[in-house]
């Protein structure tokens, strides 16, 4: 084998290796960071790229598509000391590959932790009820608070969504109890109000009936006064008919007395006529 042949083979191997290491094809959606002798040299874009294999080194390969970042579930304590569980999902995009690889060791992990702590502090300032009902507000504030760090890390936070925000199991139980107690309280109040209403109505009914009774008595008295007056007018000066009526009633009363079971003795005045006249005379005196 001649020297020339060996040199040519060596050159061939050199060319093959150099081309193999130097030609880099990147798919769309990826960007690679190239370091020349340990220092940042350039960013390879999608498509065909050439690097110098002996000086350059592809140090990092970055995905520049949107990254779906799952922020794991965590317990958060609200301002009124209620424990709630939240988890979130964030969509981030690397907009500056150099900052993303040199600004922080692991940007995905960093932003995930940042979201977790920020979420805790935002919810920590809220009351339980507010936290449960204002997702949009939490979202907006979360995005705002992450913005400053995102600049340093070359990331754009496209959106942060609160996936779940729910009270912890014990909290949920307590809330259910509270709701039940509230219902019971309402029921008791309603019942008491009913009783009160009933008592008032009853009293009013009594008042009304007493008024009517009084009216009735007055009317009755007036009626008897009128009757007596008429009788007196009808009788005039003659005691005869009056004596008759009175005497009849008197006898009837005595008869009733006598017919009673307990009656053993019936006393009849001997002088009936005189007795009735005496009664009458007294009546006249009273009038």
């Amino acid at each position, binding site marked *: 084998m001649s020297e020339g042949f060996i040199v040519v083979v060596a050159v061939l191997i050199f060319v093959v290796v150099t081309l193999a290491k130097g030609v880099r094809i990147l798919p*769309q959606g990826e960007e690679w960071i190239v370091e020349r002798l340990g220092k940042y040299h350039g960013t390879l874009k*999608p498509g065909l790229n050439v690097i110098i294999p002996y000086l350059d080194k592809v140090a990092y390969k970055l995905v520049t598509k949107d990254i779906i970042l799952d922020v794991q579930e965590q317990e958060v304590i609200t301002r009124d000391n209620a424990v709630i569980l939240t988890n979130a999902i964030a969509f981030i995009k690397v907009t500056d590959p150099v900052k993303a690889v040199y600004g922080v060791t692991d940007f995905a992990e960093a932003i995930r932790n940042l979201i977790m702590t920020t979420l805790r502090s935002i919810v920590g300032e809220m009351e339980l009820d507010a936290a449960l009902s204002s997702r949009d507000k939490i979202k907006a504030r979360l995005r705002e608070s992450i913005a400053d*760090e995102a600049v340093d890390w070359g990331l754009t936070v496209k959106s942060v969504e609160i996936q779940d925000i729910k009270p912890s199991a014990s909290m949920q139980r307590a809330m259910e109890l509270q709701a039940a107690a509230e219902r019971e309280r309402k029921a008791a109040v309603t019942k008491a109000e009913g009783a009160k209403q009933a008592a008032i109505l009853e009293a009013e009914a009594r008042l009304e009936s007493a008024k009517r009774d009084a009216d009735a008595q007055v009317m009755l008295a007036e009626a008897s006064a009128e009757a007596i007056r008429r009788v007196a007018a009808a009788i005039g000066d003659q005691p005869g008919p009056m004596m008759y009526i009175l005497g009849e009633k008197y006898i009837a009363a005595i008869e009733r007395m006598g017919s009673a079971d307990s009656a053993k003795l019936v006393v009849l005045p001997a002088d009936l006529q005189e007795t009735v006249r005496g009664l009458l005379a007294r009546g006249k005196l009273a009038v």
Partner: protein
Amino acid sequence: MNIEWWQWAVAGIVLILAELAIPSFFVIWFGVAALVMALVVLAAPALTLTTQLALWTALSLAMVALWFRVFKPGFHKTRIGTSAGEVIGEVGLLVGAVAPFQRGRVRFQRPVLGAEEWVCLAESEIPAGERVRVVAVEGSFLKVVKA
């Protein structure tokens, strides 16, 4: 030891096929060069192996160089999925005035990077109501210039 023309041809075809398995786009030029070598050897069988190999290497390199001139690696049909993305150059309306030390707000006709409105920065003072063009994305802020 000498290589026949058909050996070159077979080697060339094998190399071109190998390109399918090795996704790096350089073996194919060695394959094409080998096919050319087959023709060369067919025309001039007297060439020594050393000359043949040297010629092959030179041909491969020449083809790679030619390919790069044709392909123009800097050319991009789309910027979707790249870091700077399609956002650069987008024109929006400034709804909050921006100054070197004051952040403004810019609104776009269609959502950009997942939001219609962005906080923006600028090197110069631009009053609200002006049309501005995005020149850079800096985290959750956009850098704009007067359009």
